[in-house]
């Protein structure tokens, strides 16, 4: 079908600019892109439902109407499928009555069969239909009871209620992750295109036709895919919702913190959404060069672990001790040691690992830094996962920390203190890690009460990935920024770099000190600041694996 070929042309930093006339005013826009994207570059938002920059163009919602000049004068066309040509004349709703009427009309059609129950809809607050209604329509309904609305669900879900009204199609269990409310669907086809053209597994389809079309999986076959929760993001209305977030929070209450995916080496850009000290969900954050608009379900559900099984204090043997006491004990143990093995972690930021290096530098030859991971490395899926479960492996490499866990195992007899920072060796490979238990003093810094903590003699709770500010370098050598969301399970928790700074008496007061230390080790970081890295990250020269 044609829309499989119609991937939108998006503006890039080196797009050629051409002059077009928008509402009678000349403007410079990238050539060849569609008008939705081009108008966005000059600050004009075009309302739409079906268009999505990372999906093929379907052109079926007809909301993005503009007028363009054709052979027969100005005529309505859809902005998402009209490419920019030099000199073209475009009229938007600001100057054209026809465009205003068309957009208003499409809104009326969209709402003709859509329920008007926003107050009980989970999508309210982030619903494209609501937004476009407020922008383009706000007209009173002409619908009457005698005219009636269509039942819009699958015939399999249809039944008549006691008043003889068509019912059914509510909270249809589509699969392990997604729920469908059929009557809310506006048939924009985005989820179908996502599953077919991005996920590569056609599991959704619009069946039947006309105004009784409905979105469906094959009957009784679940929607089940590692990326299927993305359909809840692309759904412009409340038809597809994720079981993990459905009716958990009203979205306008949520604060948003931009960070990156901690579960994979690609570092998909995400937003942690939180309220009242809890993370409620993770949403993908569009980054055309990393993850487009997509994240895997496992990345999306990573927030659940932020409130599970956290280590919020120190553990000395089996007994809990205050964090401060545990940190000073860490310093004493390391300073009194004959030889210390410091194990860095690709799960922590550059800043945390820089602190480890700085301490090792103070300790001199009595300390040695090891790195790496025993986790199994898969292959990229071409969407938003590299297959490497270690998000900052490249950062360790840049800092000069070798992949040397097996060497540590071979030389285990040389050390009397082991410090493992945020690297769950015992879970990754219990049998290999068991040989490390020959080291008498084993100290673990960890966010969770994991197997490494269980195997250690002293454990110190640290902040988890969503609670720290710092940087990671992904598999493509792109440095990306993590930000701290206000969701600490205990106010006493500190980031790993701060624990290490306190124990090693580094005197660092902020992650910027740690970043500066990292810059001293990594030439390609010189000149960068958190501000210049920005929300979309920066490619580092020569850092790709």
């Amino acid at each position, binding site marked *: 079908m044609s829309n499989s070929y119609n991937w939108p042309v998006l503006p890039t930093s080196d797009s050629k600019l051409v002059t077009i006339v928008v509402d009678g005013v000349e403007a410079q826009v990238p050539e060849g892109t569609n008008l939705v994207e081009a108008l966005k570059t000059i600050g004009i938002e075009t309302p739409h439902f079906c268009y999505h920059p990372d999906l093929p163009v379907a052109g079926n919602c007809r909301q993005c109407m503009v007028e363009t000049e054709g052979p027969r004068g100005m005529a309505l066309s859809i902005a998402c499928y009209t490419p920019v040509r030099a000199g073209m004349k475009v009229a938007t709703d600001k100057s054209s009555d026809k465009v205003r009427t068309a957009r208003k009309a499409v809104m009326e059609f969209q709402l003709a069969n859509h329920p008007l129950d926003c107050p009980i809809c989970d999508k309210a607050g982030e619903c494209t239909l609501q937004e476009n209604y407020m922008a383009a329509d706000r007209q009173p309904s002409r619908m009457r009871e005698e005219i009636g609305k269509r039942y819009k669900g699958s*015939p*399999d*879900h*249809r039944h008549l209620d006691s008043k003889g009204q068509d019912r059914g199609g509510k909270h249809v269990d589509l699969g392990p992750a997604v729920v469908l409310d059929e009557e809310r669907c506006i048939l924009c086809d985005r989820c179908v295109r996502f599953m077919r053209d991005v996920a590569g*597994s*056609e*599991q*959704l*389809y*619009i*069946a*039947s*036709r006309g105004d*009784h079309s409905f979105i*469906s*999986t*094959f*009957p009784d*076959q679940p929607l089940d895919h590692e990326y299927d929760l993305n359909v809840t993001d692309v759904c412009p209305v409340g038809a597809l919702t994720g079981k993990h977030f459905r009716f958990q929070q009203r979205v306008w209450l949520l604060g948003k913190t931009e960070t990156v995916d901690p579960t994979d080496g690609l570092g998909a850009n995400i937003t942690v959404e939180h309220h009242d000290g809890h993370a409620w969900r993770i949403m993908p954050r569009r980054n055309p060069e990393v993850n487009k608009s997509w994240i895997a379900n496992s990345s999306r559900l990573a927030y659940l672990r932020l409130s599970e099984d956290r280590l919020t204090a120190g553990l000395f043997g089996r007994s809990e001790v205050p964090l401060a006491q545990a940190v000073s004990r860490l310093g004493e143990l390391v300073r009194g040691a004959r030889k210390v093995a410091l194990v860095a972690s690709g799960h922590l930021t550059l800043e945390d690992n820089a602190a480890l290096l700085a301490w090792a530098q103070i300790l001199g030859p009595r300390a040695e830094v090891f790195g790496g991971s025993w986790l199994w490395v898969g292959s990229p899926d071409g969407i938003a996962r590299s297959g490497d479960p270690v998000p900052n492996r490249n950062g360790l490499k840049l800092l000069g920390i070798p992949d040397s866990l097996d060497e540590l195992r071979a030389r285990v007899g040389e050390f009397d203190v082991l410090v493992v920072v945020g690297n769950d060796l015992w879970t990754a490979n219990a049998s290999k890690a068991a040989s490390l238990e020959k080291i008498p003093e084993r100290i673990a810094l960890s966010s969770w009460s994991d197997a490494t903590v269980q195997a250690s003699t002293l454990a110190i709770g640290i902040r988890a990935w969503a609670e720290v500010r710092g940087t990671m370098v992904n598999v493509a050598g792109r440095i990306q920024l993590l930000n701290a969301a206000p969701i600490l399970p205990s106010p006493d928790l500190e980031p790993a770099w701060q624990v290490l700074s306190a124990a090693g008496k580094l005197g660092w007061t902020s992650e910027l000190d740690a970043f500066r230390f990292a810059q001293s080790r990594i030439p390609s970081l010189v000149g960068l600041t958190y501000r210049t890295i920005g929300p979309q990250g920066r490619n580092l020269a020569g850092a790709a694996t």
Partner: protein
Amino acid sequence: MSHCHTKVDQPHASEILPKLETPRVLSKVEELVRRYPVPKAALLPVLWVAQETLGWLPQEAIRWAAGKCKVSPVHAYGVSLFYTMYKKEPTGRFFVQICQNVSCHILGAEGIIAHAEKTLGVSSHGGTTEDGLFTLLRVECLGACGNGPVLQINDDFATDVVDGRLAMPEGVALTPERFDRIAAWCRKRAAELPVEPSRDVLGGLFETHGHPGAVGSTNEPQKPGYAPAPPVLGLAAARTEDGKVKLTWRAAPESAQLHLETRAGTGDFSALATIPGKDKDWTGDLSVGTEVRILAQSGERRAKPSNVVKVEA
């Protein structure tokens, strides 16, 4: 049947697949898949074959068709629900469709539908009689408006019974009396024949060699010999004033390459020159008695040779 409005009990795959995986059905499917450049295109006809075999389209048959056409099951499901002629639930032996669209409407279709509902005792929105003989459905235009109001029984138009057969004689429209005759004919047939003989829903599918070349190559260049370039026509040779030979011809496609070939006597033709297709003549030295022809070539595709001309004195 048209648009299904309620849940239908579905038979288990083990009841259906033995009926579909028969040599007769499989050879039809093989022929159908061969006719298109990609198997997906055979989906509609393969669904037809499944419906012919089972009488309707249970979900497992849709899944089976999807497998044969290498599409996802949900694609086949969505497609089958889009088209109204795939029956999503079993129907009676005689599937009676009466047109209610504009031409038939003005000539009294509503009255006939009401009559049919009354005589058969079922709803015209897909009701089936208790004896399982008739399913009555009002439908949109059937495409025989000249006989309106018009009726279709299974796949045959009928407005009357002529000589003991259903027929749609020119200009004969359906009336309540004719409807009764048709219904009586159906009952009589049901009494005589226990089972309605199966009808080839693809109208006499015959074996072909399928889609030659370019198999599965929707986005690949055409294969040599799949569709040759158009040939050069009307090749003629004439002497110019300075004694050279001028060849003229028609019809060479501008995008083609033209290969001039000559032979003296009865040997094989050998290449003389290659010229672009936009040239419309060629002048050069050729000895008397030489035979000339031109082959057009477009990409990898070669046309059949032009007519052969002999250079005269």
